[in-house]
């Protein structure tokens, strides 16, 4: 039996993905728009969804729009941004109660689609420009969103690692854009960009819940007509192999040092050794039984967290740990040793079996939430593949030790970034 049945249809200008399931009390609608990540567009894309969700032609004030959402039993409407490989993705999500669990059973799903349509296609516009006050407010909020990265040191050090590591590549561009580029956005030029995005972006609609595919199709055919398009694709930029590992230390007034190490895996989603890479990451640093956790935390007591994670579409692996400033060399040494162990095939059959079991569990758990399910299915859109979840699960189980060692040999350390305190410098 398939873990998930995804019914995909080519609609007018976008793909509809329906997942019929009755395990949730709510229905979830996710609209995604994807375009190549460029410095020129990214800041506008970071602003646009927030402008669209704050008001519309019918609900020109945030108070009236939000009151309407409350009225619909607290329907959730939220937007977010993501970077997947060298693409920028805007998401609009509506999660709305399934009325069969309410004492008042008036239908809500259609209202959810109408609201999405309103937000996407009928914005609060005067002439060829968005509402001026909305733009001013959202520009200010975007600037504070960009600035706030500095205050979250875990996030900041990850952003800095990518900036240093991918200098000159599109992937170095931050998902929220740049503060200096916010200033030049106007109600007019953002409106121009809005029209361009709806003409050119690759668009996908996910509907998850106790719904009927036919009914959903009927709603969206009527409500969401767009022009057909051939979406732009990017070719991952050549991964330049640096001669030497780039080591960057930055000093700030912090108590705990943040150690972030960036590797090039040279493997992306859709490659035949991608599943082996996943298992590699699980043995190396993905879990609490992994080498990093055991050796950096449990054996050496150097850290509270020490883990690795993959960026599946760019082909990166990031190691992160929070350590005492004085323990930098020791921690980096231990992490190097674990990578060497992986390249030498120095891991047991038990570690391999354990990791497969935990990955399988993790995937199955992820699809128990509408959000997690969307994330997993969307990999195929980004990579232009058609890998079924069941293929993923069965192929992963077949991975051998030799395949993992082969993957390990393709992985190269690129950059070490350390956010260190002012004390350690003395």
């Amino acid at each position, binding site marked *: 039996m398939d873990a998930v049945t995804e019914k995909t249809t080519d609609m007018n200008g976008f793909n509809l993905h329906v997942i019929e399931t009755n395990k949730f009390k709510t229905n979830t609608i996710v609209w995604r728009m994807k375009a190549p990540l460029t410095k020129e567009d990214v800041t506008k894309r970071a602003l646009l969804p927030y402008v669209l969700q704050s008001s519309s032609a019918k609900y020109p004030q945030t108070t009236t729009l939000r009151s309407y959402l409350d009225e619909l039993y*607290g329907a959730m409407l939220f937007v977010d941004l993501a970077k997947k490989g060298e693409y920028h993705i805007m998401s609009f999500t509506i999660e709305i109660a399934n009325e069969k*669990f309410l004492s008042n059973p008036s239908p809500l799903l259609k209202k959810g689609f109408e609201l999405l349509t309103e937000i996407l296609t009928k914005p609060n516009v005067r002439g060829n420009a968005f509402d001026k006050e909305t733009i001013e407010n959202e520009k200010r909020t975007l600037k*504070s969103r960009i600035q706030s990265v500095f205050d979250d040191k875990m996030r900041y050090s990850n952003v800095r690692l990518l900036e240093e590591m991918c200098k000159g590549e599109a992937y170095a561009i931050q998902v929220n854009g740049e503060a200096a580029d916010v200033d030049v956005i106007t109600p007019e030029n953002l409106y121009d960009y809005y029209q361009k995005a709806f003409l050119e972006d690759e668009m996908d609609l996910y509907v998850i819940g106790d719904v009927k595919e036919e009914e959903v199709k009927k709603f969206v055919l009527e409500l969401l007509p767009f022009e057909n398009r051939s979406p732009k694709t990017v070719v991952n930029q050549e991964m330049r192999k640096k001669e030497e590992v780039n080591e960057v230390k930055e000093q700030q007034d912090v108590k705990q040092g943040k150690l972030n190490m960036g590797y090039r895996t040279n493997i992306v989603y859709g490659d035949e050794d991608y599943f082996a890479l996943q298992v590699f990451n699980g043995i190396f640093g993905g879990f*609490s039984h992994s080498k990093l956790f055991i050796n950096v935390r449990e054996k050496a007591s150097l850290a509270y967290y020490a883990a690795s994670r993959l960026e599946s579409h760019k082909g990166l692996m990031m190691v992160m740990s929070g350590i005492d400033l004085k323990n930098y060399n020791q921690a980096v040494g231990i992490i190097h040793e674990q990578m060497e162990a992986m390249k030498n095939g120095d891991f047991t059959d038990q570690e391999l079996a354990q990791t497969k079991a935990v990955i*399988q569990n993790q995937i199955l758990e992820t699809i128990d939430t509408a959000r997690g399910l969307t994330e997993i299915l969307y990999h195929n859109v980004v990579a232009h593949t058609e890998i079924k979840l069941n293929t993923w699960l069965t192929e992963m189980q077949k991975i051998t030790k030799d395949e993992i060692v082969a993957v390990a040999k393709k992985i190269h350390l690129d950059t070490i970034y350390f956010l260190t305190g002012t004390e350690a410098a003395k």
Partner: protein
Amino acid sequence: MEKITFDQLQEELYHEKMSNGLNVYILPKKGFNKTFATFTTKYGSVDNTFVPLGKNEYVKVPDGIAHFLEHKLFEKEEGDVFQQFSRQGASANAFTSFTRTAYLFSSTSDIEKNLETLIDFVQEPYFSEKTVEKEKGIIGQEITMYDDNPDWRLYFGLIQNLYQNHPVKIDIAGTIESISHITKDWLYECYNSFYHPSNMLLFIVGPVDPESFMNQVRENQAKKDYKDMPEIRRQFKQEPAKAAEKKQVLQMNVQTSKCLVGIKALHVDQSGNEMLKNELTMNVLLDLLFGKSSENYNQLYNEGLVDETFSYDYSQEFGFGFAMIGGDTKDPDLLAERLEKMLIATKSGNAFTQDQLERAKKKKIGAFLRSINSPEYIANQFTRYAFNEMNLFDVVPTLENISLHDVQSLAEEVISEERFSVCQIIPKK
């Protein structure tokens, strides 16, 4: 085993109290892959002064010990329980709050084995001096991580402003200094006093057959020899009704200022339905005042005083409680002033309309449905409610019964300047 049915929600809950006093609940969730189980003791960071089992005098234990114990329970003579869970395809975790310590796993296979592992590892402690010392380095790093986190410092700073004596003001993890005093003997003393089954609750939610799992727990507990335990004696110092400090400003390595306004709760001796009603009414009041559809929020947003980090929350437990409102801001003093004014304005009466109340209640009902999608939410919150003699599944009917009069009279009673406090984070000069 009793079965409780919730028709409107289409859920069934199974319950049994084991002969040693352990309460076990099972909620079958069809269609889900994952089974999630929590094994929780009613013991958290605030339980720092008590009469240890078999003794007659109160003792005060080192700050951070409940959390330290949580870490150390995973370690056994034969190794780490995390390893065993992952061999069985499960992911395990634990957390310590002010009033609870919970151990949990989630898994999509080998549920019986994982459940057995969960119950047994929590009920079979193994503490040694060597491993206790080793853990001090790890928890030390956990503490420093939080020291650098401005949101955590802001949250705790506000609690410390509000409370004079109550141990809620002590950081859950303690300090590097306080945990240096923790020994294996202290851990056993706390364990023996608080980990008796009669002080604990096991909750299982997932695609499971309730009969067979209840049976498994029954058999597991029957093998263990627990003696009846006298009631736990905890001690809390007298706490004044007003806030201990009016204001605290912390300087940190940040670029954006932050400001939280707190209100020290009233009626923190409540439990059961009374507490549920009070807590939900307080939540509705905050929604009406500061929700995204409120005039207040939109004024502050349009003036650029708050951004999307703005939030509000109310927590109430036995002995303490607080509302918190705020977020990132360009002008922390002005934001504090405005928030306090908006709060005071509700005391004048007729602050809200019946329509607004109905909408706020609908919003809360929808939010409750959404949370029932989450096995984690159900298990954690059900346990929290049960420890306070409330029932999670009474939320919707209780909400439906809240009147405008309830909201207005709570506002008049709880909103008072002497119970306000402000905590701010500003960039270091």
